[in-house]
């Protein structure tokens, strides 16, 4: 599944919906009828007792759109998570595609426990930002802000990069296109 300039390859232990794709429930039913609304990139249902995963990816490494600000990123991700949780409820009843509806239904069941929110973040590719300790420091700030904004939903929040996403999302491979 492609997002930004990255390919996300989820293994068999996941059932994944590219939640914000064209033609899907989110675009055709939810966003069309209640706007503005936002969505995470991936809705991931794991096997077993693992929590539901809401995953958002942002890649600043090739530049930043003028309206995108570092400071707004944690709130933006939190809003996407919030709206996606609402979308899960709606999708479990109203998604047209039976396969999608099944994923929504399973996601809703999984929400008996707090979900995991993972934000994959590639920062600006400047020399200073590429310095590994600097990158970790910035991820720490984003994570703390994101936890603050998501304290109503979950404490299970992670901000990951290319070097460590595997620790938080097993059976996933991310490749730069």
């Amino acid at each position, binding site marked *: 599944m492609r997002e930004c300039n990255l390919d996300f390859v989820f293994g068999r232990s996941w059932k994944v919906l590219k939640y914000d794709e064209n033609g899907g429930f989110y675009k055709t039913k939810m966003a069309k009828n209640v706007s503005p609304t936002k969505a995470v990139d991936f809705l991931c249902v794991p096997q077993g007792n693992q929590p539901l995963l809401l995953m958002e990816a942002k890649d600043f490494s*090739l530049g930043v759109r003028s309206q995108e600000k570092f*400071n707004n990123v*944690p709130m933006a991700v939190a809003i996407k998570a919030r709206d996606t949780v609402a979308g899960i409820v709606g999708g479990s009843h109203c998604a047209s595609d039976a396969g999608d509806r099944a994923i929504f239904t399973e996601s809703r069941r999984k929400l008996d426990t707090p979900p995991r929110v993972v934000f994959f973040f590639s920062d600006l590719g400047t020399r200073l930002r590429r310095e590994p300790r600097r990158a970790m420091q910035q991820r720490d*700030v984003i994570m703390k*802000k994101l936890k603050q904004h998501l304290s109503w939903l979950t404490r299970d929040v992670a901000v990951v990069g290319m070097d460590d996403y595997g620790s938080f999302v097993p059976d996933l491979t991310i490749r730069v296109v």
Partner: protein
Amino acid sequence: MTINGIKIDNFTVFKRAEIAFCPGVNVIIGANGTGKSHLLKLLYAMTQWASGRPSNKGNRQMIGPVELLFLGLFKPEDADLTLLIREQSGNAPAEVDLHADGRDYCSRIHLDTPFWSEIDSSIIWQRPNAKGIFIPPNEVLAIYPGFTASYEKRELAFDQTYYDVCKALSALPLKNKNVVLSRLVLGLEDILGGSVVQKGERFYVKSKKGERSLEAHLLAEGHRKIATLVHLINNGSIDKGTVLFWDEPESNLNPRLIRHIALFLRELANFGVQVFVTTHDYLLIGELSMAAEYKTGPEVPIRFLAMSRQGDGPVQIQSGYTLADLQDNPILDEFAEHYQREQDASLKFVAEKRPSYAGM
């Protein structure tokens, strides 16, 4: 003694505040001018007066122990205690109630101004045998020689917390030391590279490696702070049942030492010392929040308090068990703003040097 809560009315920046504390580590954050140090000093003051002290009720001319303590801690201009009463309160008094040891067991101070030039104070209290120790932001070992004698005779610019901690430092080490505290001291001595020795009015760090002892003036300021802690533990000033008030522990400390201090505070709390700290430090709050969230190390209750103000308005207080529970976190906000400024600077720099790279 364990302080459970405090109720403050019309005192300095506090219009009305009712704050609950935990028995472990209480971490107070907030921008400058939001009353963090005032809160700390107020809590410290409430632990300070000895049982049996008479009240001043009815005697408006006498400056009693309560007034002296408040004058010493807060140093209002011209020794005018009415300055401690919140400006907009009119004739309403300032009142502070302390609740401790899990019961309706309070110390109260009441500052009143029926006339602008007079002050009437009375105490309604049942004070426990509390022991409080206040460590001010600036280290004291360097000023220690002759300080207490000078403070008793002369008007010095230091507030009473400096005098009190120097008085506490004057006590010699105990003969029998608690095993747990000894272990904590060993950890601090590892940081110093030696043990703390007092000779007369001067303190020294006696090297573990057999090198020459270093006098306090020759130590780094951060190490003098650590040495202060060592001596206060060794002489029993910090012990089980003590309440420790530490204003900005991070000042003069290299970031590398902050996680040791965070662990030290939790270990102290685990031993039975209730801790109150004010801080502006990202690392310190991060370490403590991490411990609270992921239950690392000694499991002690930790509580975060965020103080904020809109302009000259009254202080608002939020509390939580981790940083994520606080919406007002000026430390985190400023770090995020910093990275935003850096992003803006990076993009501007890149746009000027490599036009094809900027934006997408």
